[in-house]
């Protein structure tokens, strides 16, 4: 059974722990969860914990873009612990220039 994407707000940082996959099966659910924070003021960072993430499709990237565009005002986006495959997908889209990747397997 799919687990929920747990999101927690810690002062100015929204932490999002991703499941094993972020695709058509669960990206819309994550976007709905992120949407709950669109009225929240003072969010300057969004951190996606991708240490468990093994697969992403364009719908998953859409969820990351959505976070940037509706949560806070141009928050700093960090992706933590991305695998080589995940990093490569973001690299192809040019987004590695604008997202901070911490502990990624580049």
């Amino acid at each position, binding site marked *: 059974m799919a687990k929920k994407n747990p999101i927690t707000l810690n002062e100015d940082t929204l932490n999002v722990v991703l499941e094993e996959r972020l*695709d*058509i*099966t669960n990206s819309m659910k994550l976007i709905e969860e992120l949407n709950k924070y669109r009225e929240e003021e003072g969010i300057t960072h969004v951190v996606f914990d991708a240490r468990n993430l*093994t*697969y*992403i*499709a*364009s*719908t998953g*990237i*859409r969820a*990351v*873009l*959505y976070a*940037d*565009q509706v949560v806070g005002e*141009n928050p700093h*986006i960090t992706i933590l612990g991305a695998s080589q*495959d995940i990093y490569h*997908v973001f690299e*192809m*889209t*040019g*987004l590695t*220039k*604008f*997202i901070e990747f911490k502990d990624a397997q580049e």
Partner: protein
Amino acid sequence: MQSLHYTSIKGRAEEIIEDILALPPIATQAGLIFTLHLVCEEVVSNIVNYAYPEGQEGELSVDVEDAGGFLVLTFKDKGTPFNPLTKEPPDTSLPLHERPIGGLGIFLVGQMMDDVSYSYVDGCNVLTLKKEKAGE
């Protein structure tokens, strides 16, 4: 060649993707499974969600061929004629907040495959993807 045919595809994208990934020519390509999963998801979800007018169940055929050193995946639907390769590629130099939400799917398919071609034949959209197999 392995083939799948669906006479009703509405709401069945996940199931169709799983069926394709289970076909032996694909399932045996462990080194390419991430890539093949992603491209199948992008193509199948586009066809299921957008190829047919609202209210139609829609048809889809998928052929997977192990052609020497290459895998060839062919997707055929009878939906509205549409060549996804004519779509303007996204501007990958734009920062996040200036990006449109969406529009990356077919771009990623083009980036990850060795060859992508489209034709409209006998009332069918035919999208063919080619990828060199990973080393044995």
